[in-house]
């Protein structure tokens, strides 16, 4: 800081940093600042962009459908017209390899639309749950051939050999289906088979 203050350019930089700092201190919940409708509109715009960032493993689901975007913090760049800030995302599963890819895609999407100073950070708590998946997302999953997560979390029950929940077959809509394995092609899915149409299918398990 002291070093920065030596040059006029440095002074400006330090001043800007300070400004940002105050901005951050006074806006814990940026989306609710009274009278800051321009920022709100910007957040809405960015959210809209994120509807075009998809999960590489399940390319019909956007990161908004998945419910992994937890917060968008924006601050005007002092003296310029742009925005800077942070997009906060949360991982679905600790080891999900798609997270790094999605984080990169978010950054690329932002840069593509002129947001050059927005960082992407990750937060673990509260832990992601399939309850955060959008209804539209659940419908897209089904159309794609993956059974969407059950609204009630039966699978998470710890009782051993508990009867597997009745999951609707995405192909023929029958509930006459069997769990084959609790672990499927990705961390978020379980493997089922329909007893009616015999189709094996993935179930996006509730979590």
């Amino acid at each position, binding site marked *: 800081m002291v070093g920065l203050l030596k040059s006029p350019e440095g002074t400006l930089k330090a001043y800007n940093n300070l400004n940002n700092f105050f901005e951050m201190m006074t806006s814990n919940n940026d989306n609710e600042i009274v009278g800051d409708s321009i920022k709100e509109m910007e957040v809405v715009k960015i959210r809209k962009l994120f509807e075009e960032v998809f999960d590489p493993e399940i390319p019909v689901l956007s990161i908004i459908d998945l419910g992994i975007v937890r917060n968008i913090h924006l601050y005007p760049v002092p003296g310029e017209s742009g925005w800077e800030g942070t997009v906060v995302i949360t*991982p679905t*599963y*600790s*080891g*999900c*390899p798609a997270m790094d890819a999605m984080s990169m895609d978010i950054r690329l999407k932002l840069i593509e639309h002129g947001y050059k100073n927005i960082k992407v950070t990750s*937060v*673990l*708590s*509260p*832990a*992601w749950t399939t309850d955060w998946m959008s209804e539209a997302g659940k419908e897209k999953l089904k159309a794609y051939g993956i059974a969407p997560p059950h609204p009630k979390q039966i699978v*998470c029950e*710890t009782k*051993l*050999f508990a009867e597997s929940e009745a999951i609707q077959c995405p192909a023929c809509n029958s509930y006459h289906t069997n769990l*084959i*394995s*609790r*672990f*499927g*092609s990705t*961390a978020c899915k379980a*493997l089922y088979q329909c007893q009616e149409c015999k189709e094996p299918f993935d179930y996006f398990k509730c*979590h």
Partner: protein
Amino acid sequence: MNTVNISTYQLINYTLHLADTNLILAQRNAEWCGHGPILEQDIAISNISLDLLGQARNFYQYAAELINQSTNQPANFVTEDSLAYLRTEREFKNLLITELPRGDWGLTILRQFFCSVYQYLLYEQLQSGNDIQLAAIAEKSIKEVTYHVKWSSEWVIRLGDGTEESHDRMLKAIENLWPYTGEFFMAEKYEMEDIIGFDPDSLKIPWLEGVSTVLEEATLWSPAFGSGQGEKVFMHSGGKQGIHTEHLGFILAEMQSVQRTYPGAKW
């Protein structure tokens, strides 16, 4: 490191211990990838391995943050990768049980079961512990561990109460692994209650209860495992302090070979 205060130093060691335990178990389980007894279970154990690796990454990232903050020397900054790939045997603090060779499917299942029941109880405590970031990682991990407990319990029962062959193999696996279960509950210096918020020894009774319920159903339980004669079984320890069995060196040699041969290689 002489400017680092004692409690930060211990928190770093504790976080590394949690990270190493997850990484080494993940690495062992990953050996089954492409070799599982049936396709679905090959996928299951690989998925569990991936969960553990993800949890390890969260712990390593936090450890790196703590280390870098405390040393504050950008030239020596560590990352999750350098902590995993560039530390030696003596620096690894994983539990000994995780580094033992994978053995047969029965031994792998039993180890996962012992470790998952332990991790479930551990994360339950850490969730409400003193450290916010460890609590967040625990909160995230416990949802995954719940699946691991369920899956491994069911397999222990299936194999124990299965054929004569599978029953015998499970008994042998218990004989091999039981002496490594004591280390779960032996508190190392960095695991003192004022650092982590609970005494590891307090997990012992709930662990025995959880394990005995399943082993009984699997027709594998012997009262000798309980508090009576079981106490007399010699329990191995040392992993938490970096004193390992001969097996860890081989895992690290394989796991770290690319980074050691081509330092800084990226792909």
